[in-house]
């Protein structure tokens, strides 16, 4: 794991991440891909009431 400490996240919230040059992405890991596919299916069915669409 990289130990290079670059900066902390900027923005409106209390994020505290150490931002490094490169983090190996796990977006294409089989577990993640499978989970995203299932999540897409579940979330696509959600109606989202008007109050939640704001």
């Amino acid at each position, binding site marked *: *794991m*990289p130990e290079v400490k670059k900066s902390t*996240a*900027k*923005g*409106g*919230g*209390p*994020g*505290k*991440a*150490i*931002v*490094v*040059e*490169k*983090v*190996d*992405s*796990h*977006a294409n*890991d*089989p*577990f*993640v891909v499978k*989970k*995203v596919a*299932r*999540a*897409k299916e*579940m*979330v*696509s*069915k*959600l*109606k*989202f*009431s008007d109050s*939640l*669409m704001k």
Partner: protein
Amino acid sequence: MNFEHYSYITDNDFKDYLFFSSGPKGRIKKGVVYTRIRDKPIVYNLAFGDVDPVTGEIDDNIISNNLDRDIVLATVANTIHDFCNRYGNHYIFATGSNPARTRLYQMNISRLLDEICIDFEVYGVIGDQEYKFQRNVNYDGFLVKRK
């Protein structure tokens, strides 16, 4: 959440986060990945699990039992803040890889609900409908949105 948490790293994409759990089972590498899964409204999926030391891949079927549940949960919650700082306060969806794991997530949310609700709106999903999260109701998944 004002709980103790682990230091965690990300890069300028702010979609992948890594940290180490520390406890009786040693140091266990954990990963959090955000993936956009819907527009209108925008929803991102949160995938979380141990990084398998052999394959190097995330897997949430591993039960590490490192006696640091709340510290790990607080760390994941903190990554939501970093993610939202970068991408905005959109809905974030999470569910377990199986019903037992979803139930475990639900118990953890229930236990810490008052604290979580300070910063986040929390909804439970049953089928095609979302509901304001309530304790003692079984959900298929969860939506959170930073206030």
